């Protein structure tokens, strides 16, 4: 007969504290479920030297940290960067990366603690053994505190930064951090004991903690972490207020011209070769935009600053090139170009951990003016602006910077166009739209010599014409805001003057003259293409925003307003963060107090300024993270190839 032994062993639980103490002692001695201790002390079983034990046990402590912290941190990252962690697969990959990172960091910390204990043990006499348990505890407490401080600050600054405004999340995160910190500290205590045993032969007691001590330590640690979190917290974010529009009856068309040199323009205007733009600049209000020239040659960065009204440090798009982490569908912002960042980037690219990607809306952390306008309930359309992919269908019509590429390639949409229903319409009209763009680009002037230059100008003109054509196609008479970005001038200028391997001062005079002549011709071509767009309809304001582009870094940018209620002449200086609030104010949308720039009321006549004073809201909130329609094959490779052929990326 078989005995039902399991029923025989279920003695009534004892609440005697002595039993719990004994249980802890047994765990410390390797009985019961002291799995962590056995795991950490694995390398100490053989008669190894203290340093060797410290090394191998630290690796195990690091492995433990990686297993615990990787998944926990991935959950935190998911809360903060949903675009990076788009699904379970991404979560696993991020957990692996973060696990590796935290594992290495904790292993290094544990090794330092172990090495210090080893040094202390070696330089002490035999009586040191009696104090060994105290030293082990100190090492464990030090690592616990270091881990907890780091976890708390990491959670605060990198992951959530929401402080106590999300109390359940915060309490959960701190509780997990405390539990993991205590466990890792315990592991280091055990490791230190083993090191002391190896160094001096024995310890008076094996360190262990009763459940009462553990709970007390946990509560103290939690309180400390909570204080640290409170102390380091920024002001809690305010709920995004609802935007109320005071209709001004004005529609706005924004034309963004990159690579625009005011000096060349003025010379051509003086010779009557740019009648349309000249008219806009003379009959409208013009603002000189003084830029901080630091890195202002990067179009993705500059134009996202214009679109969001925030500096790059806030909007997050720091350059055309970003890094995509292998295995993750999202991307992370490229680091600043410090030598260390370049070295890390080169190394991670070399081992294929990261690969270059193009700036996109994934990195952007501030709303663009068209997103704010759309949030306010107005009809908007934006065409070809930088970092607009993936296009999210939150009401606005968005033809992202990849839209033309998708329309050329066909196939299923990968968030290049929003709303997705628009894609089919445009795809059906694509041949006609192309023909229309070719006609708008018109014939090349005969004075342009050289096949290469002619091909360059043809390509740039058709590219700009296509954006203008698409803008016309997607906007209607009821569209409150249309914005289109024209890259052709910058592409032309850069190809003629910026990309040559030969320095400009080494070029033959005739060659240089030919290049400048071609560039000047393109200004005239652009003026001709823009002419219909620069004539504001009734109740419409056209805003031309120019940036000097990648070559003319020393020349200034301009913003010109043309249309009803607009003053005339050059009116002061500004910076590019004032463009967005000015556009928003024209449309009757309140201005966020978070924007550093101001709406330029002085560009309008007194009546308009009086009737429509600037109104403010606390914040526009964060950009929408709603899912974009993404069914097709990503055009990442094609986008990089195209931008490389246009000289944007190397």
């Amino acid at each position: 007969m078989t005995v039902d032994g399991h029923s025989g062993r279920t003695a009534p639980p004892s609440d005697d504290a002595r039993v719990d103490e004994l249980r802890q002692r047994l765990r410390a001695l390797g009985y019961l479920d002291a799995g962590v201790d056995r795991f950490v002390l694995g390398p100490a079983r053989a008669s190894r030297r203290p340093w060797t034990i410290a090394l191998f046990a630290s690796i195990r402590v690091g492995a433990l940290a990686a297993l615990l912290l990787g998944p926990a941190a991935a959950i935190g990252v998911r809360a903060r960067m949903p675009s990076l962690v788009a699904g379970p697969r991404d979560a696993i990959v991020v957990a692996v990366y973060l696990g590796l990172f935290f594992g290495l960091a904790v292993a290094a910390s544990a090794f330092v603690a172990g090495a210090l204990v080893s040094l202390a043990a070696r330089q002490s006499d035999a009586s040191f053994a009696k104090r060994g348990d105290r030293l082990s505890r100190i090492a464990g407490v030090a690592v616990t505190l270091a881990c907890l401080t780091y976890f708390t600050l990491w959670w605060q600054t990198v992951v959530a930064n929401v402080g106590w405004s999300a109390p359940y999340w915060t309490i959960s995160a701190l509780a997990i951090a405390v539990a993991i910190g205590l466990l890792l500290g315990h592991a280091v205590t055990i490791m230190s004991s083993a090191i002391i045993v190896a160094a001096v032969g024995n310890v008076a007691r094996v360190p262990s903690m009763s459940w009462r001590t553990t709970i007390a330590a946990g509560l103290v640690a939690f309180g400390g972490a909570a204080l640290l979190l409170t102390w380091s917290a920024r002001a809690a974010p305010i709920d995004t207020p609802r935007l109320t529009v005071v209709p001004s009856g004005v529609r706005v068309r924004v034309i963004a011209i990159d690579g625009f040199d005011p000096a060349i323009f003025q010379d051509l205007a003086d010779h009557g070769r740019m009648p349309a733009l000249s008219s806009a600049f003379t009959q409208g209000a013009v603002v000189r935009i003084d830029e901080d020239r630091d890195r202002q040659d990067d179009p993705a960065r500059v134009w996202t600053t214009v679109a969001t009204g925030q500096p790059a440090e806030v909007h997050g798009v720091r350059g055309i090139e970003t890094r995509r982490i292998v295995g993750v569908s999202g991307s992370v912002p490229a680091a600043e170009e410090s030598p260390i960042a370049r070295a890390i980037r080169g190394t991670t690219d070399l081992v294929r951990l990261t690969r270059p990607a193009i700036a996109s809306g994934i990195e952007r952390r501030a709303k663009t003016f068209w997103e704010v306008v759309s949030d306010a309930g107005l009809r908007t359309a934006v065409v070809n602006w930088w970092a607009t992919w993936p296009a999210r269908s939150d009401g606005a019509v968005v033809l992202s910077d990849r839209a033309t590429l998708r329309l050329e390639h066909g196939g299923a949409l990968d968030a290049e166009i929003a709303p997705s229903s628009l894609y089919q319409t445009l795809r059906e009209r694509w041949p006609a739209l192309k023909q229309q763009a070719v006609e708008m680009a018109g014939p090349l002037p005969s004075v342009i010599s050289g096949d290469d230059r002619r091909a360059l100008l043809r390509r740039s003109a058709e590219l700009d014409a296509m954006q203008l054509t698409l803008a016309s196609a997607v906007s209607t008479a009821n569209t409150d805001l249309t914005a289109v970005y024209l890259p052709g001038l910058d592409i032309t200028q850069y190809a003629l003057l910026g990309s040559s391997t030969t320095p400009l001062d080494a070029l033959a005079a005739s060659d240089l003259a030919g290049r400048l002549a071609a560039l000047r011709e393109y200004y005239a071509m652009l003026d001709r293409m823009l002419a219909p767009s620069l004539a504001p309809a009734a109740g419409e304001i056209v805003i031309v925003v120019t940036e000097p582009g990648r070559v003319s870094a020393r020349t200034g940018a301009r913003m010109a307003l043309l249309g009803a209620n607009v003053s005339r002449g050059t009116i002061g200086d500004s910076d590019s963060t004032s463009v967005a609030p000015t556009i928003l104010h024209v449309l009757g949308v309140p201005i966020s107090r978070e924007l550093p720039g101001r709406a330029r009321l002085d560009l309008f006549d007194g009546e308009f300024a009086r009737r429509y004073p600037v109104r403010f809201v606390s914040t526009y909130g964060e950009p929408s993270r709603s899912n974009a329609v993404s069914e097709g094959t990503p055009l990442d490779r094609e986008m990089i190839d195209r931008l490389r052929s246009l000289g944007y990326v190397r």
Partner: protein
Amino acid sequence: MPIAVPVFFAAYQANVEEALRRVVRESGSPVERAMAYTLHAPSKRVRPVLTMLSAELCGGTAERALAAAAAVEMVHASSLILDDLPSMDDASLRRGRSANHVVFGEAIAILAAFGLLNHAFGTIATAYEPPLSSRLAALAAEAVGRDGLIDGQAADLLATDRDINFDLLERIHRGKTGALFNASAIAGALTAGADADAIKALSAFAKNLGLAFQVIDDLLDVEGNPSETGKSARKDLRKTTFVSFSGVAGAHQLAAELCETADNALAPFGRRAARLRELSAFIAARTA
């Protein structure tokens, strides 16, 4: 009424009994009779059965592990004779009858103990080929030696009539009981050519089970019926035992948890370890 051993035990016990009777006869010289007296006394043969079950769990056969199992039991019988001596625990009752030295005298009992110990090593040396025989001999020497039975017994003697801390008590139990439990399990695994992971898991099983066995032994000394336990009741009153630290209920609780941990250590073997789990269940519930 004593808890009956698991059904499958009988076959293993019978094999062990037969093997022990082959190696030590009941007739012959006084020393040989004294050896047989303790070795063939009624016993559950937990340790040799553990050896054979471990061998089978690791893909070997009970038959090949039988010699190692017999050696383990001879070492155990030897330790019992020595433990009961007047100079040691001075016990008069063992396995339900008079202690060896009471029947044969102290001198013959000591010789019988050494005879059994010697015979255990001889059995290992002749039954197995090198290097397995060397590994088994080293394992037995370790279980008996200064970190095993001898250390445990010495620490136990020095602790008599003295207050001892829990760490010392654990050391005594680890030496007197745990070491041979551990050796029993590992010996079986070695005869089956087990890998390091299997040996590690069995070692964790035996370590926890060995301490549980001893905790229950302490409990039986307090609660048990001498007619069932076969030992003098409350002979450990002068000693600090597990029960001294935890109380009776606490000792029951911890013994149960140790057995449960032992079972958990067998997780890598899955259902194949069912018989070893039955063994731990039997130990957890034993009354003798």
